[in-house]
């Protein structure tokens, strides 16, 4: 086409009322501005059907690069196909997608669950009842739970007494945790699959006055802040790096566009942040 045409980047998010993704969006806009690219973003609100439609619209809008944060890894594959057919570069971010994606940039989610739950296990003295606050069944979340269970399984004194779905959202996580606390009088720890849910769980723990420790994944600002409160029950969160994921994704996409062979997956390291580490951490 016309060479003057600025590069167009489209990104479809699974949701946009989670700081994690809003931060990604900011990083995307900053990065795009620095290379003179235009950006469109859409919000699937956890609806694969809407996500596919959003992608189709962006194809019509003739974007060059599609950054895809799938709300469901299998469900979006027809969108991936359409995008590839239209000649777009497709890079999945945060969660991988099926279909011919050019690359995937995402956290090492098994590590994320394992690190958080090892820390949790040690903090409760390697024994006692633990609950898992689950989330939406997408690969990254499933992997975190898997990593967590693997870690906990190493401690015979620890028993996972309840797994409930907090929908990664504060209000739901709050009531679910209240019920978990009611039903399990001896609970010692809770693992939440992300910080959206952890903040609800924390509110419930604090209100109950019980000594239940909480570990999570993300490193979201509100979690970092909560951990630093003296005597906080929120003891650790495995940080992901949303800004870096975006920067890497754009880099990979450009490289691909210029003709490079890019790796099929770019796993991003995660890092356990405890109360001490929280003092200096931010996304």
């Amino acid at each position, binding site marked *: 086409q016309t060479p003057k045409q600025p590069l167009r980047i489209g990104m479809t998010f699974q949701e946009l*009322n989670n700081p994690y993704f809003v931060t990604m*969006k900011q990083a995307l806009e900053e990065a795009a501005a620095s290379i003179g690219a235009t950006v469109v973003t859409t919000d699937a609100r956890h609806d694969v059907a809407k996500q596919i439609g959003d992608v189709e619209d962006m194809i019509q809008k003739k974007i060059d690069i599609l950054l895809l944060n799938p709300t469901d890894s299998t469900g979006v594959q027809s969108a991936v196909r359409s995008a590839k057919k239209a000649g777009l570069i497709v890079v999945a971010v945060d969660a991988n997608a099926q279909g011919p994606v050019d690359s995937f940039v995402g956290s090492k989610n098994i590590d994320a669950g394992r690190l958080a739950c090892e820390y949790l296990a040690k903090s409760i003295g390697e024994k006692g009842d633990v609950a898992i606050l689950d989330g939406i069944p997408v690969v990254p979340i499933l992997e975190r739970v898997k990593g967590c269970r693997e870690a906990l399984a190493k401690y015979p004194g620890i028993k996972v007494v309840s797994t409930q779905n907090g929908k990664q959202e*504060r209000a739901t996580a709050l009531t679910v945790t209240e019920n978990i606390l009611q*039903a399990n009088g001896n609970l010692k720890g809770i693992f939440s699959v992300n910080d959206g849910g952890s903040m609800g769980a924390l*509110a419930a723990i604090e209100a109950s006055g019980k000594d239940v420790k909480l570990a999570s994944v993300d490193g979201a600002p509100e979690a970092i802040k909560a951990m630093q409160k003296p005597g906080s029950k929120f003891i650790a969160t495995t940080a992901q790096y949303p800004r870096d994921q975006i920067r890497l994704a754009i880099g990979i996409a450009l490289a691909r566009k210029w003709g490079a062979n890019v790796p099929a997956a770019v796993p991003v390291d995660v890092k356990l942040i405890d109360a001490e580490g929280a003092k200096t951490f931010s996304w």
Partner: protein
Amino acid sequence: MNATATHPTPPAPDGGLFTQLRRSTAFLPLVGLVAISVFMIVATDNFLSWGNVQNIALQSSINAIIAVGMTAAILTGGIDLSVGAVVALSGTLASGMMVQFGLPPMLAVPLGLAVGVVIGLFNGYCVAYLRMPPIIVTLATMGIARGIALIYTGGYPIDGLPDSFAFLGGGVLAGIKVPILIMLATYLVAYVLLNMAPFGRYVYAIGGNEEATRLSGVRVSRYKLLVYALSGFTAAVAGIVQAARVTSGQPGVGVGFELDAIAAVVMGGTSIAGGRGAIVGTLVGALLLGVLNNGLNMIGVSPYLQLIIKGGIVLLAIFISREAKR
């Protein structure tokens, strides 16, 4: 022609308290609540502990508060789908006022409530004066209110609320959690409004026969306006309590709350066609749903199965309390 008002069996003016209760639309829901509670007591360990009873009331409080305004809207033959979005908007707005502008809760809370009333007035204006169908008006304002909340917060939760505000969500007064007290106060006021003040009579009348009410000289449009304002207000109250409970203003909170509130209202015996029902029934309906949620969690039923059981119990409850055929 024998003059009139012959009372073959003059019924006791009001009947005893029990008779009155028995006749009320709230009676069967109450029976349902008791039945399910008994079941839960048997099926779980500490269902009836003071802690768990408070827990249930606490968890029902948000829905119960929203359901007050929803009851009024449904009694007039309308509905309000925007309540969930109003919960988000009022909560984020009040939070923003406190965190970003440093307003004290004393000022921020009224502002949060005011935004609910404004949305309610807008709904009411469209329904009452522009004669647009409530279901679609409030569906539209649902999107609008949610959009404003998201734009206002940029999608982030607003954190760092003062402790004096968090008290509204987690505090204890006279041994009872504050949200429960707020819920009870809301119902008390609503009871007086709907059963003892002219306002309530008009609400029922509009739902019973709007045209007749209008022709008799009642300002139907104004009362409908007020009803939606009330619904916006109670949704905003719930939004404040919700924000205080999670100590942050969440732009994404409240999705689907409208359906929970409708379920509470209808489970409580109010006719979805308007004109018939009782506010007390709504409280019972909300508690019934709360008991179900809590009890199934306590028993340890899987979340997926819970959906089915809850659906089944809602059906059963409505089946039992549906109006007798003809």
